[in-house]
C-alpha cells in the first residue's frame, strides 16, 4: 500500500510537470496553429538562465526566478517577432522546419556555453516542504513541482477564462477573421502566446532541473514528451493538456514501479499510438460544434 501511494504521489508530481510543459505547447498551437518543435529547448533555456542567475550571478533565489521568468517571456516575444512573424501565411511545413531549426540552434548554443555535463542548482528549497506520511516519503522537489504546477495552471485558467486579454486570445484561436474584424490585434496575440509559452517552458524547465539536474540533452528530450501528452489530451485543449500530463506521468511511474523501469520510457508512446487509433483528436480535442 505504501508503495502504491508513493508511486501515486511521484506520478502526480511528474504529471503536473508534464502538464505544465504541455500547457505552453498547446497555447502556441491553439492561437497560431504552429507546432513548436523547439519546446524542449525553450525549457532548457529557462533552466539554464535560472542556473546562470542563481549560481553564477549569485542573485537571491526569488529574484533569480523572477528575472528568469521575465527573461523567457521577452525571449518568446523576440522569437515570434523575428522568426515566426515573417512566416505568417506560409505553409505549415515551413513553419515546422523553422521551429526545428530553432531547436537545433538553441541546443547548439547551450552546448557551446554550458557543455554536455549535468549541472545542478544550489539547495534552496526549504526542508519543511518535504513530508512523511507513515512510510510514504515525499521529497521537497516533488511537492515544489506539484505546487508550481498547480499555481501556474490556476493562474492560466483564470487568465484565459476571465481576463480580457485571455478572451481575445481565445477569440483568435476560434475565428481569426472575425477577431480581426473586431480590431483584435492578431499579431500581438501570437506574440503574447509565444511569450507566455516561453515563460511556462522556463518554469517547467526549472522544476525539471531541480528534480533531475540540468543537462541540455535530457531537458530537451523531456520536451519531446509533450507530444504524447498533447496528443493524448487533444492538441487544442488546455484542460486536455493538464489531464494528459497527469495520465502520462502516472503511467510512467506505475510502469516503472510495477512492471519494469526499462519500459518506463516506452509506455507513453505506446499509449500515444493506441489513442491515435481510437480517438484521433485526442481525449478532449475539439470536435467541431455542429448544430443539426
Amino acid at each position: 500500500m505504501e508503495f502504491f501511494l508513493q508511486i501515486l504521489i511521484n506520478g502526480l508530481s511528474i504529471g503536473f510537470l508534464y502538464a505544465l510543459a504541455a500547457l505552453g505547447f498547446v497555447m502556441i498551437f491553439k492561437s497560431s496553429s504552429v507546432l513548436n518543435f523547439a519546446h524542449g529547448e525553450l525549457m532548457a533555456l529557462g533552466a539554464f538562465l535560472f542556473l546562470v542567475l542563481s549560481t553564477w550571478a549569485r542573485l537571491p533565489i526569488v529574484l533569480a526566478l523572477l528575472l528568469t521568468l521575465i527573461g523567457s517571456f521577452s525571449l518568446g516575444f523576440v522569437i515570434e517577432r523575428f522568426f515566426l512573424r515573417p512566416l505568417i501565411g506560409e505553409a505549415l511545413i515551413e513553419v515546422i522546419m523553422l521551429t526545428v531549426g530553432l531547436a537545433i540552434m538553441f541546443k547548439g548554443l547551450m552546448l557551446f556555453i554550458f557543455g554536455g555535463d549535468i549541472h545542478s542548482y544550489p539547495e534552496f528549497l526549504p526542508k519543511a516542504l518535504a513530508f512523511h506520511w507513515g512510510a510514504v516519503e515525499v521529497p521537497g522537489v516533488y511537492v515544489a513541482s506539484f505546487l508550481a504546477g498547480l499555481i501556474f495552471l490556476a493562474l492560466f485558467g483564470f487568465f484565459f477564462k476571465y481576463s480580457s486579454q485571455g478572451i481575445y486570445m481565445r477569440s483568435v484561436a476560434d475565428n481569426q477573421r472575425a477577431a480581426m474584424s473586431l480590431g483584435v490585434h492578431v499579431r500581438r496575440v501570437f506574440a503574447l502566446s509565444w511569450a507566455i509559452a516561453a515563460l511556462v517552458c522556463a518554469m517547467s524547465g526549472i522544476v525539471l532541473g531541480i528534480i533531475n539536474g540540468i543537462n541540455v540533452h535530457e531537458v530537451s528530450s523531456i520536451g519531446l514528451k509533450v507530444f504524447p501528452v498533447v496528443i493524448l489530451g487533444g492538441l487544442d485543449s488546455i484542460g486536455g493538456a493538464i489531464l494528459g500530463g497527469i495520465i502520462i506521468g502516472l503511467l510512467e511511474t506505475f510502469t516503472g514501479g510495477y512492471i519494469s523501469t526499462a519500459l518506463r520510457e516506452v509506455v507513453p508512446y505506446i499509449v500515444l499510438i493506441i489513442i491515435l487509433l481510437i480517438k484521433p483528436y485526442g481525449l478532449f480535442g475539439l470536435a467541431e460544434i455542429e448544430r443539426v
Partner: protein
Amino acid sequence: MENNTLLQINNISVVYSDVIQILKGVSLDVTRSQIVSLLGSNGAGKTTTLKAISGLLKPENGKVTEGTINYRGHNIQNSAPEAITRLGIIQVLEGRQAFKYLTVEENLRVGTATRWGKPYRKDLELVYHYFAPLVARKHSLAGYCSGGELQMLVIGRALMAQPRLLLLDEPSLGLAPLLVKEIFEIVRRINEEQCTTLILVEQNANMALQIAHFGYVMENGRIVLKGDAKDLRENPDVKESYLGVAASGTIKSYGDVKAYKRRKRWL
C-alpha cells in the same frame, strides 16, 4: 468634402492576388447618421467594398490599387484592420461568424478589443437592451445558439466597440422573414438612438430599402445606380431586378419571369 460626409470612397479599384480585379472604380458617399444600403446580386462586389473600407482585404491578398477612401479626414485605404477599427469602423462579417467556443458574453467582450482596459458594463447592458434574447443565453456557448441569436450576437458584439460606422454584411442571410424583420427593426433603432452610421449590404433589397436613407446598386464591380431609398423603391428596374415586383406593381409569378427580355436601363 462636405462636413456631413463621414466616409467618402473615391473611384477605388480593388485587385485580388495582383490579377483579379473585383472593383472597377467605385465611388460612394456616406452621410453621418444615415443608413446607406448597398444592393446588388452575387459577385457584384458589395462585400469587397466593405472589406476595402474595413481593411480586411489584406489578409485575403486583396489591395486597393487606385482611388482613395477618406474617413473623417484620414485616408484609410490599405490600412491595417487594427488601425481602422480603432478609428471607429467595425465590420460585421457575412455568415454570422461568432466565436463558437466562447460563451455569448465572452463573444461580446471581444468587441471591446479596440478599447482594451476601459469599462464595458454599460455597453453590455446596451447590447442586452437591444437584443433581449441574448440575456437568457449569456453563459451558453455561442456554437449552440440559433441562427437568429447568432445574428443578434454578432451585431451586438460590433456594437460593443462603440462604432461610428458599422458595416453590416447580409444580416438577413438564411433567416426566417419574421426574424429578419425584427433584426432590421433593431438596426433601425440603433441608427436612430445611437446615431450610428451604417452601411448595409443586402440581397434582401426590399427590407434594406425600407430602413435605409440612401441606396447604391452595384453590378460587376461598378455602382450602376444611386439615389434616395424612397426613389430606388419606386425605380422600375430595381423593382424588377431586386424587389421581385413587376413594373406594373403586381407580384410576378415564376411563369412570367422573363428577366432577360427586359433590358436593364443601366447596362
